[in-house]
Structure formats: C-alpha cells, structure tokens
C-alpha cells in the first residue's frame, strides 16, 4: 500500500510543479482550538528545490485525469502519461503528517478536471473540509478554483481556504485561444471577480458581526506562462497590472515555459526555459508593487521589452537621467526609492538617519546600499565633485564592467534562447 502511495505522490507532485506559486504568506489564521497549525504572516520556506525555488507547501493534484486538452499542460487528455488519483483520506493524511514533522506550511491542492467542473470542485472541497472540521487543522491551504464551478461551491471553499487562485495561463486572449481553444480569459475573470466581491462582503460583515468567518484571508493569485506564445514583455506586464488593479490580486506569477511536447505551436522540446526573462518580469512586478512605479514608466511603445543585460530599475534610471543626481540628504523618500542600488530597507534607514545630521559615503555604505551602482545617481555630504556629465551608455558601461561576472553568466544563459 505504501508503495502505491509513493508512486501516486510522485506522479501527482510532478504534475503539479508547473504551478510556481508556493507562497504561504498573508494568513493570520490562529490555532484557537488547540489543533494543529497556524498561519505565518510572511510565510516560511521549509526547503528549496535544486532550482532554488521555495518549498513551502505540499503541492499536489488530486488527480491528473483531465477532460481538457490544453497544449501547454502535461495533464492534457491527449498526452500519453500515467494517470493517478488520490483519495480524500490520502491527501488529508499526507498533509497532517508532513505538517506535524515541520516539513511544510500547508497544502496547495489543485486538480485536473474530471467529469465536470462542479464534480471536481466538490472533491477538492471535501479534502479541505475534512482537514478543517475533522482534523482541527489550521495550517495554510491554497486551493485552486476550478473554472466553471458553481458559485455555491466556490463560496463554501472560500470559507476553509487561505488563498484561492485561478490561472490566466497565457498573457493574452489570443495566446490562450491558440493553445487552448476550449478556454477563454472570461472563464478566469468571472470567478476572480466573484471571489473578490465575496472577500469584500465578508470583510464588511465582519466589521459589524465578529463571528463572521474568514473568507480567503490570504487573497487571490494567478499565473501566466511566459514564452510559450509570442507576447511582448509589455503585453505581459500590462495584463498583470490590469489584474492587480481590477481583482486586488495578492500576486501574479510568471512561469517560464518549459517545453513538454513537440506541438508545433510552441517552442520545441529541449529549448531552455526563459529564466532570465522570467526574472526581469518579477523585478518589474516588484517595482510596481513596492517602489511606486507605474507600469507605463517601465514598458511602453518605445520600450516594449525589458533589457536583458540590466535590471528594469537601472534601465529606467538610465532613460531618465534628467531626474538625477538626487541629493540623499534632501530628496523625497519616493525618489530615493528609485535610485538603482538602493532598496526599500536602505531607503527607510536613510530617511531616518539623515534627521540626525548629513550623511556621508561611509555611512551610506554601512547602511547597506550598493554604493558603486548608486553613486552615479546620488550626491551626499562628501560626494566627489564631478566635472563632466556622463551619458547613459557610459554609466551603463561602468556598472556592467564592475559587476561583469554576475551579468555575463546570466546573459549567456539568455543567449542560448535565440
């Protein structure tokens, strides 16, 4: 029996791994009933895969049987692979026992669609209900919303899950239609909107009546596959910005496409996944969410693609040299945030420290900014006087020369792609 369980786990974890989200943050669920587990506000990565991704959740499919045939998915019905399905009890037992040993923060449960959407959603619901109601489990649960499932089932699931997600898959409708003609972005928009409204409604009610239960406390997320279809970085990030705004998403994930078939509509088997591009998209995402950048500043008609050799913050600064240099001792916090080489933590420290007196280079270095990069864009109490104004490409040259090894390595990886 244990051998079959190991086999199933291998198949159903393998099929689930292309969903890159593994976040366990944002839930403040407490272990009030002296049961097992609780939420951790910033999440915990319990280990890392050999590709450096965080492992926080037991990420599995309930089954990889599927009636759909999405070209980018290993579980598509036309794919000749081994199929398996967990029972409800098996998932519950795995989750409880992994959690008890501190292997995981919780469960990320998804599934191929068998029979129909409601049938699948109902099965997922049974797992989470059993965990919450019978096992007193208060650890994290990320549940996939199955497109097309009824509002009732989705609402009920939201009462037990910490996060729900549903994937856009392709950044544009055209891209999606090309690879999954049976699907449409509308299938995603509808449940995202529904859950978003429920979250708002439950929050409002909770203000009045304390006993109203939590509803998806860690919010919703979605994922786009990058590089399977020919969208530009601009297409991708504009879609992301739109979904952040319209559906108050907690996260958008970008997953570099890993070729899994010889379908002529997509990159051929053996093509390297676009890891550097993926990384640049995450950096852009970060700049939008934490650094006060508008997506249109980073990507627009003139610049539909992110630079590969330098990060998007540096490219923006080089395109906008007229804003620099700024004086660290007087500039706005928002502007300090925009300096290449200064992160959120350092920017906050700078703003606090300068109240006590002008800041000097050695102090900035100790505070932890990447001075060699930032120095081209700032002045402070003892900045050397600079005779000549450098051009963007010259500054880029200096910075690249200094951090050569680091950039060359990643740049090479990217070269293999084209």
């Amino acid at each position, binding site marked *: 029996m*244990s051998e079959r*369980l*190991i086999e199933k*786990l*291998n198949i159903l*974890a*393998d099929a*689930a*791994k*292309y969903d890159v989200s593994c976040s366990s943050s944002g839930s403040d669920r*407490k*272990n009030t009933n*002296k*049961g*097992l*587990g*609780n939420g951790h506000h910033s999440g*915990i*990565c*319990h*280990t*890392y*895969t*050999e*590709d*450096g*991704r*965080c*492992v926080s959740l*037991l*990420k599995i499919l309930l089954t990889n049987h599927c009636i759909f045939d999405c070209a980018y998915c290993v579980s598509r019905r036309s794919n000749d692979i081994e199929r398996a399905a967990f029972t409800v009890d098996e998932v519950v037992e*795995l989750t409880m*026992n*992994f959690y*008890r*040993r*501190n*292997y995981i923060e919780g469960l990320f449960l998804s599934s191929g669609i068998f029979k129909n959407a409601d049938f699948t959603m109902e099965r997922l619901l049974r797992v989470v209900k059993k965990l919450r109601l019978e096992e*007193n489990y208060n650890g994290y649960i990320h549940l996939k919303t199955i497109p097309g499932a009824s509002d009732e089932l989705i609402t009920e699931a939201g009462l037990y899950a910490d996060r729900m997600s549903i994937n856009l898959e392709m950044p544009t409708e055209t891209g999606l239609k090309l690879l999954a003609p049976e699907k449409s972005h509308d299938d995603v928009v509808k449940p995202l909107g529904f859950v978003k409204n429920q979250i708002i409604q439950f929050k409002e009610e909770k203000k009045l009546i304390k006993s109203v239960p939590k509803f998806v406390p860690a919010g919703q997320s979605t994922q786009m596959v990058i590089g399977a279809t020919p969208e530009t970085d601009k297409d991708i990030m504009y879609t992301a910005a739109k979904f952040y705004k319209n559906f108050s998403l907690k996260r958008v994930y970008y997953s*570099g496409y*890993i070729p899994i078939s010889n379908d002529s509509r997509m990159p051929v088997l053996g093509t*390297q*996944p676009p*890891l550097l591009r993926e990384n640049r998209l995450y950096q852009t995402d970060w700049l939008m969410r934490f650094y006060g950048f508008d997506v249109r500043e980073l990507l627009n008609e003139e610049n539909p693609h992110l630079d590969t050799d330098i990060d998007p913050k540096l490219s923006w600064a080089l395109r906008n040299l007229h804003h620099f240099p700024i004086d660290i001792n007087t500039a706005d916090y928002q502007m300090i945030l925009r300096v290449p080489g200064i992160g959120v933590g350092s920017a906050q*420290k*700078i703003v*606090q*420290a*300068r*109240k*006590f*007196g002008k*800041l*000097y280079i050695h*102090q900035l270095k*100790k*505070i932890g900014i990447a001075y060699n990069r930032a120095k081209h864009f700032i002045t402070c109490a003892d900045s050397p006087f600079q005779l000549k104004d450098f051009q963007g490409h010259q500054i880029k040259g200096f910075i690249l020369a200094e951090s050569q090894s680091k950039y060359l390595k990643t740049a090479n990886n990217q070269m293999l792609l084209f």
Partner: protein
Amino acid sequence: MIYTYDGSLEGLLTAVFEWFERKPGAISLVTEERYQPDAFTSCFEVLTNRSKADRVWKGLASRLDRDWMRKAYCTFLSEIPEMQQELFLFICYVFQHQAGAEKNYGNTHVLNIAQTARKVEREKHRMEAFIRFQQTADGIFYCGIDPDFNVIPLIVNHFKNRYADQQWVIYDLKRHYGIFYDLHTVEEIEMNVDLQQLKHAKQTLLDQKEQLYADLWKNYFKSTNIVARKNTKLHTQHVPKRYWKYLTEKL
C-alpha cells in the same frame, strides 16, 4: 578600565547601572571567563543584581519600542563577545541621548545592534523552517539542533502555538538544553544522554510510520524539482550547506 561580568543579560544590565553610578569614561566589558588581568588596566567586578538590572531594563523599555527592545535582546542572544560590549555601549548611548536616538543609523552602535539582531532573527527563522521532527515510539516529536546563536528562547512561542496538539522536544545539542512541550506548557529540560545518540534518534526508538513519511517527503522533494531549471548556486544560497544535516530530504 575593564568591567567584568558573569555573561548573563542581567549582569550586562547591572554593568550599565554601575557605569552610570560611577561614570568612569570609556570601559571595555568582558565576561569573567574571558578576562585576562594585565598590569596596566584597572578592573571593576560587576556583581549581578536583579533589581538594578530590572531598573535598567524598564528604563530602556520606556525609551525604546518593542521592536528595538527585541533587537537588544537578540543581540544578547548572539553570544558574540564584541557584540555584548556593543550592546552595553548602545544602551548607554540611548540613555544619554534624546528619545528617538536609536533611529540614527549613522551611529555605529545603532547599526551594529540592528545588524546583529538581523543575523539572529535570520537564524531563528531558519530554525523555524529547517527543524524536522521525528516521531518517536512514545509519540513525542523530537529534533536536535545546533544553531549559531542561542535562538531557543526566540522560537518557543512559534512552536507552542503551532504544534499545540502534539508533544515535542527541541534540543540544542551545542548548548546542552532544550524545550519540551507536554500539551500544556513548555518547560526547559536538560538530558543526560550521549550526544551522538541524540543527533538522530535511532530507528528502534522511532514510530513505525516514521520511515514511511520520511520516504514520502524525500520523494516529494525529488518530484517537485524541475530539472530544466537547475540552479545549484541559488539553491545553496537559500540553504547553506551547514544546515543540510537537519533536512530529511537531504539525508
């Protein structure tokens, strides 16, 4: 001038009290253990005094917010000798300046405390992440650790809140003490057993199903990896090799 103290937090706080009583100018603070008398520097022996220490701690708490009080405590738990001296200087600095002086990141003591506390918090977080319990035959979930800093006091609440329905033991093999949760409270314990044995509980002492779940976990770890994305550098950056010994999936 040299101040010697017993190495405890109370001792360090008493030293602050004594310093303000006497104002001897710059001093260096060392533990009795590390103290090496020399002919040229005079020495003052700080006698740990509970009520003096309490007064200093309370005074500090009235000037610093919880966040900074925790930073001070973390610095103490770092057990780094130079940082004990820095903590002493930081506390004196806070008392000698206007409220809010701890935000002066241009000051060396402030920065040292902030940075040391960060290292300690990181180690604490790593323990919360990398501890792997093994279920023993008598139902207790056990894990031995040897963290760089003395972080057990910092992780008690996390494990108590989270693992409320199972008995567990976390044992610091380096500092020879641990904590035991008996479904009600957490108690400090010392075990008189061969340390080698404690590193990994013997098979015969383990629950019958322990091996199965360890195997399932190892398999899961393998299956969830995406070979096409392999990036060993990033991997070891997240999980430095010295922590691998904790991890079931790496055994």
